[in-house]
């Protein structure tokens, strides 16, 4: 049905375009271009009782995504064909079948851009609206409706969105019931006012309003059917210094996330930075109070999120740091801070000696120090909302931007990158993490029991890269993590050999050597072989992957343990 509708819309648009082109711009269609990309991930599962890996009834799974986009001057149209046959374990299990998951038509002319169908967009930092896809997480809250962007005057940018959100996939796109509508205005003062055009101070201000509608189907509560939110932001830069901030407010929005309390929500995000040659300092702060915002108040996890609350923590890529204790933003409330200092030691001169000579060396040295912490709010509970039927169900009151005593997460890390010679470079990293598993809920025993309380971990990482010969490079990672509150110590080793530009092979072993239970001192070995040619990439992987929480940008999903082959292809044209 969705496909038929799409074809009809495309046909109509094409007819209009053909008519227009034949009367005014002959040959327009003939100049059109088609681009696209494909991603296929197929996985085969083996049972592995040691790590809890299970085999689905179909024994294999495949996720596939094909984007086709046609552009012709101001007009573009496209679709994404998706297949979940069946969905990989860890993806939303209800995704099934094959069909259209995204489709749109769009034209842009005279500073006006109109999109009908699916689209992604974001207002400001996303505190009240962000529609996006994070395929690795199975997150896709694409809007389905109309988007209009208009620039009525230089420096003034207006956007309006109106639609429903993607919720599910059942042989095609399935949208949620809630309606999301909003608009955003942004003014670049330097563009808007001629006399500020060349000013050193650059200022952008913006404001947005978003409202969602969902019928009240609750017999016990008078639920708000229209929940509005608004935000204001400003970005200011002067030379090497920049300051940005956004504040957001949301009216009562009882939901499964907040226990159906009727408290208003607040959020604030502040970013500052100073950057100069070889030195950068950034300071960020964030306050979130009851800011879960979904177009369906009854869903949880990563479904139908209207807004996006970024995590103020450093995103890690090294295995132990990234997969054991990743932080998830707490939409019900948190106060977070982050500071990062990066400095590059210049190449050593003849006058340098000792440590200065080592750090400078022939190529200089980069050092980055990052510290991030997230706390609970300083809040007071306002009685039991369920026992008092006359209660306004406000739940709690919180002191704005005042942190509570509970530390949710902290990460202090130092990264040192040094190139020793033309052939050899290394990175050393140390991390100290504190992770409250009662909040983050990413740490489990191998039998599936949640760990309670704080987990403290120290991680050392050494990444060595050596160029054996022209086109031949070998890279080794040695990682070690020490913790006493969860599965004890871990070590990870990685060897990756690259034969440029086509081939690479890697073996990774994540080893829980310190586990108190000898039988659970498991090696999670995973081997990958890849071939790259032009815009095509093929990889085959085999081995064990541990269960855990997989996060991107503070949004997480639980991935189950698996054992088997994984085959993936990505290609674009």
């Amino acid at each position, binding site marked *: 049905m969705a496909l038929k509708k799409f074809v009809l819309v495309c046909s109509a648009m094409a007819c209009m375009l053909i008519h227009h082109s034949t009367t005014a711009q002959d040959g327009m269609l003939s100049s059109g271009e088609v681009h696209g990309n494909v991603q296929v991930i197929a996985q085969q599962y083996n049972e592995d009782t040691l790590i809890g890996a299970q085999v689905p009834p179909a024994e294999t799974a495949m996720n596939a995504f094909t984007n086709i986009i046609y552009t012709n001057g101001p007009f573009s149209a496209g679709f994404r064909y998706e297949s979940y046959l069946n969905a990989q374990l860890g993806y939303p299990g209800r995704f099934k079948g094959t069909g259209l998951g995204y489709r749109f038509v769009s034209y842009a002319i005279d500073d006006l851009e109109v999109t009908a169908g699916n689209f992604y967009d974001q207002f400001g930092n996303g505190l009240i609206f962000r529609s996006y896809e994070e395929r690795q997480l199975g997150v896709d809250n694409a809007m389905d409706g109309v988007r209009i962007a208009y620039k009525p005057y230089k420096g003034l940018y207006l956007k309006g969105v109106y639609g429903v959100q993607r919720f599910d996939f059942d042989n095609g796109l399935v949208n949620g019931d809630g309606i999301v509508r909003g608009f955003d205005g942004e003014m670049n003062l330097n563009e808007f006012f001629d006399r500020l055009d060349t000013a050193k101070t650059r200022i952008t201000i913006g404001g947005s*309003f978003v409202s969602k509608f969902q019928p009240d189907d609750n017999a016990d*509560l008078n*639920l*708000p059917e229209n929940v*509005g939110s*608004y935000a204001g932001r400003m970005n200011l830069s002067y030379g090497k210094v920049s300051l940005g901030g956004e504040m957001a407010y949301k*009216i009562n929005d009882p939901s499964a996330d907040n226990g159906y309390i009727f408290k208003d929500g607040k959020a604030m995000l502040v970013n500052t930075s100073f950057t100069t040659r070889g030195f950068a300092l950034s300071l960020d702060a964030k306050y979130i109070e009851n800011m879960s915002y979904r177009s369906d108040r009854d869903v949880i996890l990563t479904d139908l999120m209207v807004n996006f609350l970024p995590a103020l923590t450093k995103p890690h890529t090294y295995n132990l740091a990234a997969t054991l204790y990743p932080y998830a933003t707490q939409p019900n409330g948190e106060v977070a801070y982050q500071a990062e200092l990066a400095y590059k030691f210049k190449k050593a001169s003849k006058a340098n000696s000792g440590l200065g000579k080592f750090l400078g060396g022939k190529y200089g040295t980069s050092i980055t120090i990052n510290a991030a912490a997230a706390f609970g709010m300083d809040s007071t509970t306002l009685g039991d909302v369920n026992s008092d039927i006359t209660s306004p169900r406000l739940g709690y009151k919180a002191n704005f931007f005042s942190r509570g005593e509970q530390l949710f997460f902290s990460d202090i890390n130092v990264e040192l990158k040094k190139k020793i010679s033309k052939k050899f470079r290394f990175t050393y990293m140390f991390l100290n993490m504190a992770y409250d598993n009662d909040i983050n809920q990413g740490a489990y025993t191998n039998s599936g029991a949640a760990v309670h309380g704080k987990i403290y971990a120290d991680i050392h990482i050494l990444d060595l890269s050596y160029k054996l010969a022209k086109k031949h490079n070998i890279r080794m990672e040695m990682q070690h993590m020490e913790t006493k509150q969860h599965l004890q110590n871990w070590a990870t080793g990685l060897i990756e050999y690259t034969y440029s530009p086509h081939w690479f092979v890697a073996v990774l072993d994540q080893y829980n050597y310190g586990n108190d239970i000898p039988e659970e001192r498991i090696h999670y070995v995973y081997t990958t072989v890849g071939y790259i040619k032009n815009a095509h990439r093929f990889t085959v992987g085999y081995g064990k992957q541990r269960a855990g929480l997989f996060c991107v940008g503070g949004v997480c999903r639980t991935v189950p343990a698996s054992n088997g082959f994984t085959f993936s292809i990505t290609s674009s044209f």
Partner: protein
Amino acid sequence: MKRILFGLAALTLIVAATSCDKVKQPNVAVADICEVCDTITDFPTNTNTKRNIILEEFTGHLCANCPGGTYLAQQMDSTYGEQFVIVAMHPESSFTVLDPDGDGKYTTNWVIEEASEILTFFVPSPAYPSGMISRKEIAGNYSISKNQWPAEVMAIENDAPLFNIQSIAKFYESQRALCVNTEVEALTAVNGTYKVIHYLVEDSIVDWQKNGNPVLGQGHWHYPIGSVADYAHRHVLRDVFGHVGVNEGEPLGSGSIWGDEIINGSAATGDKFHLLTSLCDVNDSWDEHHFYIVSFVYDDATKEILQVYEGHVEVEN
């Protein structure tokens, strides 16, 4: 450009104003009314010019000193007439124990949950006999001893009333349904949150009561000292009812001590508010011929009762 910005600002205001539902009463207020009840909006002109005063007296059938308070309250009632309204509350306490000596006396349970809730909320350290004078906070206390009642009534008897309130109450005997139509009129401009609630009161129920020494101000002069079998319990609170606060499946009209919000914000002089409230399946052991209702409007911020009305309950088949 100015027109564009003005248009945007106007659009923003329109959309913002129409796309936000601010909920002040999250829980579903059961607005189901007993089928027999009809809405009445045609009330007679309210000619009351006084601020009426309510005494909510806390008592219990084992409280020997309480009849002394009741006696005083009745004297005040005869002094102030319609301006003075009495309600006797029997919250759960050591004075409401049933059949304490196992001799078949004091077996009637006068306690209602709402009375206990009111006592808990307003009186952290109850001492009987005590009572609240229009729930006015006096030196940090809502409930005061009986000796203070006359002075505190005198202190507010000449206050200009902020509201007038009147109710038309009908009891349908065959269906055991009580229907109360209420009109509240702002006599001056007000700003705040104001609520209305109703009491169903049964008067003159003869049953056991301990009576103290009237010479010492403890007992009632009309009764002997000690256990009295034929004591006429006056102004007994039977139920508290309004729309708000009714759980599904529970008897309609019961369950809340806070009532219905009639104003949240400002109201002008002469503004009138009408409510239909009902109580279905009224306990058939209660004598409807002894019923009267008490309706009052109070300031939600201070809880002070600003106007109160005592009305006859018309009984129909």
